[in-house]
């Protein structure tokens, strides 16, 4: 069984191995034991509410309970831009117009901004290759929206994600080569690595502060602004399905887009419903395709757990689960749980709360009489 739970101290080895395997290009989790150790400690403080809410870093592990192994990680940073400055470029338009000259020229322009300051970021998603497919990635990503939903006061109303921008196989970024490298004598891969190690603000401070007029950049650089790396395309698609949209900001290094959504508009949030756990001894076949499963969370702040169960377990008020699932979620019969769809095209049962069902039926009946 695959279960989401808060990251713990003993996840370090698995995490380190995962980071090593991820290789170049994925910099949210550099293969640096000390740094990973710090992140875990930070996450522990956060879940135990021993740090200020705005300093929170919520990291979740995806654990394979049979192997007792951590196979994925995802996170939410409660607020960005507080202890260091958070930079983006805003892609906007400068219009140059004169009726007398017959000139009306629109010039796309990058303005350095700190607009995401004080906003919650979803980040640090990494899944072992062995577990890709079958909905694990969706669980790992979407469990965060269930958490945001449950504990809204700890987060901003709007959340965002920075998407990885275009770079080639050798780790060269066309935008970095045309812009960043002119101000900071370094290869993109190196700058990227440094920023993963927490030096991004330092590098950003060396970057150009005045607006950059895009026509002054070479074509390959202009072409990648607001575009994602091909490996990130599925993640972008998933976020778009959740209601995230490009907000006009791009990464200052590689031009990758920033996508954002209001928490209350996120699909997982809108389609979540509450039930009560009902532990049953009747055997349940848990091994059903991702399309027939839903996410179920234990609604706990400190020990947030999420796994997936077959849609068929959902009743009008309760949700049936075998003892091993209840144990994985740290639940007993009668405890409240929250459900959300796993797949985009999953069944829409979740809207049909019992009381609504009856009301709907009544309406239909009364209509059919006339």
């Amino acid at each position: 069984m695959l279960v989401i739970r808060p990251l713990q101290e003993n996840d370090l080895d698995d995490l380190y191995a995962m980071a090593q395997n991820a290789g170049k290009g994925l910099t949210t989790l550099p293969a640096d034991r000390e740094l990973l150790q710090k992140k875990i400690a930070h996450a522990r403080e956060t879940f135990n509410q021993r740090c200020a809410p705005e300093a929170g870093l919520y990291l979740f592990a995806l654990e394979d309970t049979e192997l007792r192994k951590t196979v994925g990680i995802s996170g939410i940073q409660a607020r960005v831009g507080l202890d260091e400055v958070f930079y983006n470029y805003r892609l906007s338009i400068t219009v140059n117009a004169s009726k007398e000259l017959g000139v009306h020229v629109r010039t796309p322009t990058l303005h350095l901004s700190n607009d995401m300051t004080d906003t919650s970021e979803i980040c640090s998603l990494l899944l072992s290759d062995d577990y890709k497919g079958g909905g694990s990635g969706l669980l790992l990503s979407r469990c965060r929206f269930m958490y945001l939903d449950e504990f809204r006061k700890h987060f901003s109303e709007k959340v965002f994600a920075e998407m990885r921008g275009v770079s080639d196989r050798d780790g060269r970024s066309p935008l970095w080569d045309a812009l960043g490298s002119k101000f900071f004598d370094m290869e993109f891969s190196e700058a990227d690595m440094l920023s993963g190690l927490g030096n991004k603000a330092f590098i950003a401070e060396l970057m150009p502060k005045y607006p950059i007029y895009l026509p002054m950049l070479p074509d390959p650089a202009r072409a990648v602004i607001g575009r994602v790396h091909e490996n990130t395309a599925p993640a972008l698609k998933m976020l778009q399905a959740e209601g995230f949209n490009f907000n006009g900001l791009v990464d200052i290094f590689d031009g990758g887009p920033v996508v954002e959504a209001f928490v209350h508009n996120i699909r997982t949030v809108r389609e979540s419903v509450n039930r009560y756990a009902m532990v049953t001894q009747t055997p349940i076949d848990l091994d059903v395709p991702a399309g027939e499963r839903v996410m179920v969370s234990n609604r706990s702040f400190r020990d947030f757990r999420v796994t997936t169960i077959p849609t068929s377990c959902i009743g009008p008020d309760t949700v049936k689960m075998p003892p091993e699932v209840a144990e994985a979620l740290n639940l007993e019969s009668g405890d409240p749980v929250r459900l959300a769809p796993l797949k985009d095209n999953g069944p829409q049962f979740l809207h049909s709360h019992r009381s609504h069902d009856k009301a709907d039926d009544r309406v239909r009946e009364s209509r059919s009489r006339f």
Partner: protein
Amino acid sequence: MWLVRPAQPDDLEQILEIAGTQSARLSSTLPKHSEALASKIEHSLASFAGTVPASEAPRFLFVLEDTNTGQVAGTAGIDARAGNGQPFYNYRRDALVHASHELGVSRRVEVLYPSHSLTDQTLLCSFSIRPELRETEAFELLSRARMLFIAEHRQWFSSRLVVEIQGVQDEDGSVPFWDSLARHFFNMDFETADQYSSMLSKTFIAELMPPNPVYVTLLTERAQAALGQCHPLTKPNLELLLREGFHAGCYLDIFDAGPVLEARTDTVHTLVTSHRKSLHGRQDEAGDLCLISAGEGQAFRCTLARAEETLDDELKLSVSAWKVLGKSAGDAVRMAPL
């Protein structure tokens, strides 16, 4: 003899002809259309007469005349207040150091800042001369006559003088700096913009330029190489101005990145070395060739003649030169060595 005097309405046709022989120059302040030129001459005459309203900036236009033929051979101008009441645009070339203690790096980044700093400084402008005269004494007379005019009417002018020198332009008429920057905002080539600028004003075009600083490193290599460089044709002009004590500062033309030369008015060579003398006659021509000016305002004349200084502040000058200057014995003149 060569004579520099205020431009008159009758000079219009000849000035247009000279303006036509000059290569494209966006920041030229010499109109290429007769209506605009006529009003410029009219304004110039009012400036010389001191009858320009206080709200308007005086602008002076001189011509170089061959007194033997009456032919006009060149023009030179002074705008008492650069921008003429409007902002006067330049780029200021400056540097920022992007440094980080944490990362142990420090990098110098060159930036072009739009600037109006030179607004209201006295601008030497509208210089044009028939190509065959470019390397002659007449060239020097035409350019330096303005300094003598300034010396004689010092209170009309500011404490600094500035001159824009034409920047790099290729043989096909393209301007690398324009193509790398301004072109993106106008969608037109330099020559088209030049045509507009002669009909409208440079300020008008400048106001359409992006108001933000520009990073030099993002310009094309050819544009970067052109920064502060002057057009080969301007070499004699540049050399003369450098001899006069002008120097290239941090200002560049916003269209072609040609250098803007600056000087403190009171230290300009011609102003420092010129002296007032009283006119004294002689029949023959003897002595050193020097610049001699006389007259105020509309009566200002400047010529090139051989003259001898005496110990009691007199200047011995041939009577034929008196006529050109419109002066006679005992009148005050100003002379400067060539």
